[in-house]
């Protein structure tokens, strides 16, 4: 047992400090912010102390919880849990630090920090859970925190609507997950990951049941990680504060889906059909996300679609099924978390100062905000896969695994995604920071952010540059030998994809030749494609028509029954009694 009781404290500490935070906030705003930051820092340190245990092979601590049902509280300390706990807590610390300057002095900040602490604690608890049921409890908690934080500025109806949408869409996935894990429990009698893994290896679970439960669990992961077809909530979730977007919707919560698939792949991985499903979900989401990001005008939506796309690549890697690709997906998780959080934080400081998210209104910021410029630059080059930044190495691992596995269709599609990735990344970068300063920018006083905001940006930029050196350490932690990139053609192909994406962006948005609007006018087909992409391929209206509108109509129809008149309500009671009596008579 860890001398600092780190296995328990790393997730219990943030959770219990949620209760203390309102008390501390009585001492003032600064006390509250520093309290939150210190708690997360301690939790990150505790996660670091768990690394030796994980390197030694990992342990699992079980405490009996409901002996009647055989339920235990299991805390699992192994490579994957500690890896994700480190990602969550370190990023959480940097983002809490950033929030001090970003959120400033607003109303409702106690609620904000409580939710952030609750979120980080639940996320850590999620990754350290040793059985399905415990993980599901934290899964739900994480979803709730996310919805509340999206709707943080509840005076804005768009934010409330976005929070509700996020909750409902992830709920669809959660129901699938719940049914899947209950089915598994009914069949095998256990929730624990270890026991299920052993059973699956021996072939103790019928293959039909395994596939069904696998698909249902995958549905949960799809909902949480905003993959196709449940990807519609993530772009709207950008209504929340940018720190929330950075923490939850780029770096941690959406990784819960990837974590889940990674955690259960020893259980369900024996089913080839399941792996194919995972891979196809991944690649379709990757293509959807990348193409939609190329057309949108909202700077945060670019990053949101990019998240969908990068997570799709992770799902694709997990769908290949080999240990090397498993490692590649987790490594890409870490790198995506770093550069996406960086991107969101940089975009956040731009939005904070300008008050708009529309990229058409921003141009020429480069001279005025040097630190943000540098941060955005680092994020963009890491995202596109420019060497030697980490994005290059992690994406290449995935692509090379595709090539070694012989999945040439996926290989080609992944390169297609890379082309678009670098296109939209540099498009955003050039649009915002180059060119003549727009009227909006000229009208506002632009200043650079305080130290609590710049230090996290700087740290993340450094991380994005040098983290690839830790690849060996990460592979040791995860217990998988570092996969070798077998063919240099893979590097060549991805660099080519990078160039193919970069050049149009450079020409269109930096050199302005040809001028984008001329291009749109002369070739009608480009603007049609752009419209389709901006509308999100019509998924939102489709879901609205088939699901949301009938439910609302049903609600309005039932509303007419509620008259508020006693006599009419009594009819309802009498009808109910009549029905019950008839049923009893029939029986």
């Amino acid at each position, binding site marked *: 047992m860890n001398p600092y009781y780190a296995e328990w404290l790393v997730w219990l500490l943030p959770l219990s400090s949620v209760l203390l935070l309102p008390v501390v906030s009585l001492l003032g705003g600064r006390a509250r912010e520093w309290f939150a930051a210190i708690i997360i820092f301690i939790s990150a340190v505790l996660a670091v102390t768990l690394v030796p245990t994980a390197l030694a092979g990992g342990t699992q601590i079980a405490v009996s919880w409901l002996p009647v049902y055989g339920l235990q509280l299991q805390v699992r300390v192994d490579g994957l849990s500690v890896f994700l706990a480190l990602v969550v807590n370190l990023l959480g610390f940097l983002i809490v630090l950033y929030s001090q300057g970003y959120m400033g002095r607003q109303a409702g900040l106690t609620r904000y920090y409580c939710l952030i602490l609750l979120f980080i604690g639940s996320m850590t608890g999620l990754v350290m859970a040793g059985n399905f049921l415990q993980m599901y409890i934290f899964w739900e908690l994480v979803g709730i925190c996310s919805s509340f934080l999206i709707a943080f500025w509840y005076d804005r109806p768009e934010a409330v609507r976005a929070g509700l949408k996020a909750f409902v869409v992830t709920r669809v996935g959660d129901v699938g997950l719940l049914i899947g894990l209950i089915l598994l429990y009914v069949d095998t009698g256990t929730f624990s990951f270890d026991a299920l893994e052993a059973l699956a290896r021996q072939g103790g679970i019928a293959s039909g049941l395994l596939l069904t439960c696998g698909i249902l669990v995958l549905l949960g992961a799809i909902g949480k990680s905003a993959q196709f077809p449940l990807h519609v909530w993530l772009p709207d979730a950008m209504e929340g504060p940018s720190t929330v977007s950075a923490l939850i919707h780029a770096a941690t919560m959406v990784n819960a889906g990837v974590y889940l698939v990674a955690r259960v792949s020893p259980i369900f991985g024996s089913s080839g059909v399941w792996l194919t499903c995972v891979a196809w979900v991944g690649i379709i989401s990757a293509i959807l996300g990348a193409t939609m990001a190329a057309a949108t005008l909202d700077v945060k939506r670019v990053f949101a679609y990019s998240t969908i796309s990068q997570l799709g690549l992770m799902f694709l890697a997990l769908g290949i099924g080999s240990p090397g690709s498993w490692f590649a997906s987790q490594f890409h998780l870490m790198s995506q978390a770093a550069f996406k959080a960086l991107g969101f934080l940089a975009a956040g400081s731009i939005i904070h100062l300008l008050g708009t998210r529309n990229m058409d209104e921003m141009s020429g910021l480069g001279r005025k905000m040097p630190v943000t410029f540098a941060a955005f630059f680092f994020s963009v080059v890491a995202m596109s896969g420019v060497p030697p930044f980490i994005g290059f190495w992690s994406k290449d691992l995935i692509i090379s695994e595709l090539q070694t596995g012989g999945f040439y269709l996926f290989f080609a599609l992944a390169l297609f995604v890379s082309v678009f990735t670098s296109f939209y990344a540099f498009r955003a970068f050039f649009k915002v920071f180059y060119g003549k300063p727009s009227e909006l920018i000229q009208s506002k006083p632009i200043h650079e952010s305080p130290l609590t905001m710049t230090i996290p940006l700087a740290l993340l930029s450094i991380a994005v540059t040098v983290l690839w050196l830790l690849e060996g350490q990460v592979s040791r932690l995860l217990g998988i030998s570092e996969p070798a990139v077998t063919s240099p053609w893979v590097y060549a192909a991805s660099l080519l994809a990078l160039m193919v994406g970069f050049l149009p962006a450079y020409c269109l948005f930096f050199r302005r030749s040809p001028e984008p609007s001329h291009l749109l006018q002369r070739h009608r087909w480009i603007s049609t494609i752009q419209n389709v992409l901006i509308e999100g391929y019509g998924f939102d209206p489709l879901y609205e028509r088939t699901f949301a509108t009938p439910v609302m109509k049903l609600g309005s129809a039932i509303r007419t029954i509620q008259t508020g008149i006693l006599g009419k309500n009594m*009819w309802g009671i009498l009808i109910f*009694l009549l029905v019950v009596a008839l049923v009893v*008579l029939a029986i």
Partner: protein
Amino acid sequence: MTTALTIIFATLLIVVTLSALVIKRLVYSLIMLFFSGLLLGAIFLIYGASYAGLFQIITFAGAVSVMFMVILMLVGGELLSTGPRFSREQLVGCILAAAGFLVVAIILWQSTGSLVRIDEGTVTQGLGTFGNDPLTFLWSFRSWDVLFLIILVSATLAGIVSLFSKEASED
């Protein structure tokens, strides 16, 4: 014999209750309700559940009816139920209730008492100065106490009605 007694009391109870709800003048309606509670207490007493019966008479026929009277006088002026006698909504309510009653009655009748039964051995209540034979109760000495109680409570009720109705009629 007890069967006949039960049938008489039961029909009387239903008639009195129905009239309590149908009569338009609220004061008369309340008096009918008072008698309904009294009858129910009498049914309890016949079967030898003396404690329950007396409790029923004292609370419902006594305290609650008086409370109703007082409230009625406080509210004042609304001594008549307003509105048309037979409207569509009233008909719907009556039909639904009648249907429900029919179904429930069928169920209860067919189950021959085995459906709802609360048994605790065969121990009857030990306050048995009244004995367990319902007929002897009616003629035993304590019946005078009950009679006086009824007269007392009715007199109180009448007194309150007359006291307050003077104010009402002075409007």
